[in-house]
């Protein structure tokens, strides 16, 4: 995408996207450290390398739009404006966490900002976004719902059924496929016989767009288009963002005992495709902000993450009374 195309985005949105990328990156780097120290229970999947997707889409959404997230979901929550303290506390399993310690890394939700929850079931969150979109359609608002999922999830039945259902109901849904080329340790190229997940959109009669998922502003423009279609009542869009992740899950190297699974080219492409570098270069090319503005944003992000760790570590574990709470909404 040319830099000219990106000029339309405007300084405020670019700044928002930059801040978001930095917050995600710094948060995740810290989580990696904490995990290595053995401070975080369970499975942890980081969003490092994929920041462009959440940040680009997030900046195209309104506060009252909904998102549904995945096992690799920290970035989505941050992009929707989530609270780092409560997210970090949740990763520690603390009572002050988003889910009071009951959900953990794979189940962060913040209903107050439209985050309908991360999901440990691959593809499990996709149809839930249709329901959020149906709600807004029923209420007559122009809210949209975005659902994130991986290349691997695109082979689940829920993907197919959901794209078709959203299409025939013309629901305002953004299907955001984060194609990081692997589902766990299986290359996408082995798990599907087409180069682009976006090609599947044609089978549902909806637009399918491939975008560089390491380019935050490119993702943003694609998302903004799709959001506009949704708000205008023109139905869903499938956006496939080609991106790269680090490890599938923290601790995987020990766990795989040295078995390799990513090819050299992919590792090189991943290294070359840092979304923050790309965004920094774009910002320079657009002549928007000086380096010190960006540095200040980074410092803020680092500080916010430090605060989050402190908040989490100083928070209490859930008490025994918590075990049987939060079960029923009715009597």
């Amino acid at each position: 995408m040319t830099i000219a195309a990106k000029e339309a985005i405007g300084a405020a949105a670019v700044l928002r996207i930059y801040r978001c990328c930095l917050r995600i990156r710094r948060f995740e780097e810290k989580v990696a450290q904490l995990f290595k120290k053995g401070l975080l229970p369970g499975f942890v999947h980081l969003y490092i390398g994929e920041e462009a997707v959440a940040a680009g889409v997030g900046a195209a959404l309104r506060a009252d739009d909904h998102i549904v997230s995945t096992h690799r979901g920290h970035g989505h929550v941050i992009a929707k404006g989530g609270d780092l303290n409560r997210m970090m506390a949740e990763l520690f399993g603390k009572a002050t966490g988003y889910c009071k310690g009951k959900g953990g890394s794979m189940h962060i939700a913040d209903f107050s900002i439209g985050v309908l929850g991360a999901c440990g079931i691959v593809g499990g969150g996709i149809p839930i976004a249709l329901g959020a979109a149906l709600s807004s359609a029923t209420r007559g608002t122009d809210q949209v719902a975005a659902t994130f999922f991986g290349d691997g999830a695109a082979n689940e039945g829920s993907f197919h059924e959901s794209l078709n259902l959203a299409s025939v109901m013309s629901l305002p849904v953004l299907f955001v496929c984060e194609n990081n080329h692997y589902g766990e340790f299986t290359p996408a190229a082995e798990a599907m016989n087409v180069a682009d997940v976006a090609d599947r959109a044609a089978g549902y009669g909806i637009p399918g767009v491939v975008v560089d998922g390491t380019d935050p502003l490119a993702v943003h423009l694609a998302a903004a288009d799709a959001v506009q279609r949704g708000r205008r009542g023109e139905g869903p869009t499938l956006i496939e963002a080609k991106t790269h992740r680090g490890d599938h899950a923290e601790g995987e190297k020990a766990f795989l005992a040295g078995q390799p699974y990513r090819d050299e080219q992919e590792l090189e492409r991943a290294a070359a495709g840092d979304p923050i570098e790309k965004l920094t270069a774009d910002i320079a090319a657009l002549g928007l902000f000086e380096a010190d503005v960006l540095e200040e944003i980074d410092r803020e992000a680092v500080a916010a993450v430090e605060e989050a760790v402190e908040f989490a570590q100083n928070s209490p574990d859930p008490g025994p009374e918590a075990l049987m709470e939060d079960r029923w909404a009715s009597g």
Partner: protein
Amino acid sequence: MPPKTYIAAIREALGEEMGHDERVLLIGEDVRLGVFAGTRGLHREFGPGRVINTPISELAVAGMGVGAAVTGLRPVVDLMFGTFLYLAMDQIANQAGCMRYMFGGQAKVPIVFMAQNGGGLGAGPHHSQPMHPLFMNMPLIKVVAPSNPYDAKGLLKAAVRDDDPVVFLSQLSLGGQRADVPDEEYTIPIGVGDLKRAGADVTVCSAGLTVHRALEAASSLAEDGIDAEVIDLRTLKPWDEAMVLESVAKTGRFVAVDESYPTCGAASEWAATVAEKAFGDLRGPVQRVSNRPVPIPFSPVLESQTIPAAADVVDAVRRTMARG
């Protein structure tokens, strides 16, 4: 007021609740024409925005319902036959059944999953398997299974108003039932059983179709001087333990009758609970009457042998009376 059928009662419940509360939507395959689950006519009344006729996509349809529920609607998702719920199980068990708790109380999931449960149709295994024990085992799912038109209407209305996920299981084998069903507003609270017949000698506990078999059995036992108390639980989860335990305290004998597979079935739960909590009251062994452990066969001759019959209930009562 002429008696109404079970299906008409369901239709009335849906119509009334949709009329009261515009957040109530009906979603499912062929809900427009109303294949049998009592959705017929609602499309004309409420239009395609409230009665949503979907493709054949159980998983996404259920999931869309879940998403609608957590964002303020009160969907009723009609999945037609219980066995089709296997396709939607992830959304029911992992999503609807976990969201509130796993999100620390943030989510409210007021959704009803409706389906026809069990056999008696001569439709073969893929349209007949009894599903309720699976849902009973899920910790945060409620399960109701009305045995008659009056309860069907009252329980369905209560299910729609409930703020938690409810699996509403009706039975086509009861479709022909007719009973007086008031046009006036009423609901039947979830979790409260119904004492169908008072008796002194033995407590027979059941739900759905088999309540009728239990009542038949009670009549025939009465001829032999055995006075059976028959409880229709109506709600399978949470079930009315107190009513059952109180009855057993009086009768000292317990027979659980249920149209599901025997292992980990509903009758297992009832029998285990009575044996655990009312041991001191028991004067004979608890007895279970369940389906034979085979996928409900097509042949009506065989099918009728798989589902508990009144004679099976009579035998079970005699077994527990023979002892102690």
